[in-house]
């Protein structure tokens, strides 16, 4: 029965979403609150129905209902309890269910938060949200139906992809989809602003928090994806410039640009058109990413399911872009800038440059990702560009962005005087130059590495100078240092939340620089009792053993680290043998450290158990990247707190 109920629920949800979108638009156009009210009810109904569909699917997974093809494909009787729930989004169809449910949730929050505050925009916001929702429910019913029956009903399912049996895979898609779907809200407000002609600053200040939240979840999704890649895939890396990664990275870049350009509009009434374009671009890129990864036009290591779904997304993407462009053209005369750029040496100019760099980075990532398509179309050659291309082109862009990150928040608006520059940047520049000189003297890495690290110190010094000065001003008024700092962070939470996020980016940057520069690896065959040495660590192979887990067999190697801080650490990398898999899956074991990660992958073993081939890596400063994620979370929390700035 479950499949039939599920399909029925989705069909009703589709009808309701379409109805709601139409009625909200008509209500907005004719100024009829009753119609908008009805659309609101439809939105609530759609959310309830999507929740029901999600619960039905979870129930089917928990009860091993193999009459549902999707359940049979992604679980088996041995799948552990938690992974049976997360298997819901283990493949395409279920991912769309989760995606649509989140969109429904966001729509609900929009209804609750904005139905009285965004009067004129609201009907159109609702119409757009429901329209997008209708598209996703349509995808759930036509190209990617999740409740398709399977006949005959198999006795056992195929099982979840072993690589997805991991905590990172529980959280990574959730965070990523919360980010992707979150950008629908600013997009809906942008379209509403264009339709109503209220393209002033209201829509953009209203959606600021939404953009931050979506941006945060997308950042978190990217970081967790990196963590998953690092500790599951066994290649010791966290980012490969794979098309799937790029697909998620591009909207992140444009959203980062948006977060900054919004401030210029709030403060100087400039960049109206630019901000609208960025919102539309970010939302379009989330759709493009899905198209790219699901249509199979680009070969990716991730090899997702392919099908007609790509066509649906491409079609929807075309509609979104055309409608947005038409609306922008229609409102062209009211989109003109009101403010003017006064000087090149100013904060708005720094922000503008930041935006140019971010959009340039987006373009290079886009170009590199679709390059195989272009090359094939233009020259008939099958060519691709790999990680070296992306690194080479993006490193200068990202270094400039880090530099701007130090300059932007401190430089004066409108026109910075020489006095202002000296007051703010003399100290940090001295710190940066001294650090660069010191690094070179100590022989720390290449010029590029020493320069990059010095640059992060320069930015950190900029942040420190600002904080120090603000705290000193409060102390002059009789406050003590720590309460002064706390009060500062809470009162000006938007500004200092941003600073903390910048700090997080610096920490991640140091992690990336360090790991790319100083990580070392080796591969060797060891007999029982033999040792290998890498980067000063001696590691002994103790032996192999075999065990049987709930849904797989496992051969585990035991290794002991003999010296250094990690002395006595036992690492147990393994090979897992899943019955549904043709070949074993490596299970990595590692010891994480602030500087050194010791990371072992079992490559191969002799069938008599006396020797193993093991990959040993000492990865440097990778933990800083995950640490950056924690700092990022704190900074985001601080910046979305309600502003407390009152007459202090």
């Amino acid at each position, binding site marked *: 029965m479950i499949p039939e109920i599920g399909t029925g629920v989705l069909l009703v949800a589709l009808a309701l979403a379409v109805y709601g979108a139409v009625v909200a638009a008509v209500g907005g156009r004719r100024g009829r609150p009753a119609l908008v009210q009805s659309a609101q009810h439809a939105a609530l109904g759609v959310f309830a129905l999507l929740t029901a569909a999600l619960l039905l699917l979870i129930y089917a997974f928990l009860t091993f209902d193999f009459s549902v093809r999707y359940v049979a*494909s992604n679980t088996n009787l041995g799948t552990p309890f938690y992974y049976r729930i997360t298997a819901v989004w*283990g*493949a*395409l169809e279920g991912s769309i269910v989760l995606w649509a449910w989140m969109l429904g949730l966001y729509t609900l929050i929009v209804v609750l938060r904005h139905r009285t505050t965004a009067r004129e925009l609201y009907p159109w916001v609702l119409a757009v949200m429901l329209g997008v929702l209708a598209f996703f429910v349509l995808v759930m019913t036509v190209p990617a139906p999740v409740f398709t029956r399977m006949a005959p009903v198999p006795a*056992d399912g*195929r099982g979840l*992809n072993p*690589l997805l049996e991991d905590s990172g895979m529980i959280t990574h898609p959730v965070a990523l989809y919360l980010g992707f779907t979150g950008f629908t809200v600013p997009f809906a407000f942008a379209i509403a602003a264009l339709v109503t002609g209220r393209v002033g600053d209201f829509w953009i200040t209203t959606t600021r928090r939404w953009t931050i939240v979506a941006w945060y979840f997308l950042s978190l999704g990217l970081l967790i994806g990196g963590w998953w890649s690092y500790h599951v*895939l*066994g290649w010791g890396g966290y980012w490969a410039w794979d098309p799937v990664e790029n697909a998620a990275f591009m909207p992140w870049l444009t959203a980062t640009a948006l977060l900054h350009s919004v401030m210029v509009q709030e403060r100087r009434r400039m960049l109206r058109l630019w901000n609208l374009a960025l919102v539309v671009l970010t939302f379009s890129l989330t759709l493009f990413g899905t198209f790219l990864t699901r249509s199979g036009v680009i070969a990716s*290591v*991730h*090899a*997702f*399911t392919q099908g007609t779904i790509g066509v649906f997304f491409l079609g929807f993407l075309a509609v979104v872009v055309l409608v947005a462009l038409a609306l922008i053209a229609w409102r062209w005369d009211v989109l003109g800038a009101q403010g003017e*750029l006064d000087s*090149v040496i100013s904060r708005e100019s720094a922000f503008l440059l930041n935006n*140019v760099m971010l959009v*340039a980075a987006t373009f*290079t990532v886009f*170009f590199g990702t679709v*390059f195989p398509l272009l090359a094939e179309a233009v020259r008939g*050659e*099958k*060519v*691709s*560009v*790999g*990680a*070296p*291309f992306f690194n*080479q*082109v993006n490193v*200068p862009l990202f270094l400039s962005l880090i530099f701007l990150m130090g300059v932007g928040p401190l430089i004066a608006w409108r026109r910075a005087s020489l006095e202002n520059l000296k007051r703010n940047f003399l100290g940090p520049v001295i710190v940066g130059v001294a650090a660069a000189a010191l690094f070179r003297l100590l022989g720390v890495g290449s010029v590029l590495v020493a320069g990059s690290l010095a640059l992060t110190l320069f930015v950190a010094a900029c942040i420190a100078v600002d904080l120090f000065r603000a705290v000193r001003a409060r102390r002059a008024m009789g406050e003590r240092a720590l309460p002064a700092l706390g009060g500062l962070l809470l009162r000006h939470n938007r500004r200092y939340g941003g600073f903390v996020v910048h700090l997080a980016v610096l920490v991640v940057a140091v992690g990336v620089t360090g790991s790319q520069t100083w990580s070392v690896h080796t*591969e060797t*065959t060891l007999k029982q009792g033999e040792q290998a040495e890498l980067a000063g660590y001696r590691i002994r192979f103790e032996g*192999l*053993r*075999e*065990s*049987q887990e709930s849904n797989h*067999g496992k*051969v585990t190697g035991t290794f002991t680290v003999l010296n250094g801080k990690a002395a006595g650490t036992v690492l147990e990398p393994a090979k897992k*043998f899943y*019955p*549904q*898999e*043709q*070949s074993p*899956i*490596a299970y990595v074991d590692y010891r994480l450290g602030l500087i050194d990660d010791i990371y072992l992958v079992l*490559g*191969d*073993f002799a*069938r*008599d*158990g006396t*020797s193993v*081939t093991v*990959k040993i890596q000492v990865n440097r400063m990778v933990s800083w990247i995950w640490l950056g994620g924690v700092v990022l979370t704190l900074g985001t929390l601080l910046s979305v707190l309600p502003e407390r700035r009152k007459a202090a």
Partner: protein
Amino acid sequence: MKPKFLVGGAVIALALGYMIWAGVTQSAVYFVTPSELTAAPVAGKAYRLGGLVERGSLKWNPATLDLAFSVSDGKTAVPVRHKGTAPDLFGEGRGAVVEGQWTREGYFKATLILAKHSEEYQAPHPTKDAPPKRILDTLEAPPR
């Protein structure tokens, strides 16, 4: 004010264009099949060679970490050598993409072996549904 920004924008656009052009020419990797490679091999050029790992061609020497196999498209087979173990999912009779260079000595030197990881699986054969037999031949049961 205006011309200054135009000049600035043009400089940035030119710099970006140059970086992209330089990046593409330096890191382009050409996809070839074994037949295409043997028809016109260029030593030192970066290739991605795709095909099936020929049955019976796989040789692995754990002591020296030398891995050798042939990649075939049914017409031509190209000998490939690699230092180190192959990734998961790699095996005889299965598809593989190897990245590396053609050498003058007449073999393909792989720097990277790519195995696709998919989120969905083929159905297990009914006969293979039984739990796997002992994987290690002579090991005793785990000591703990």
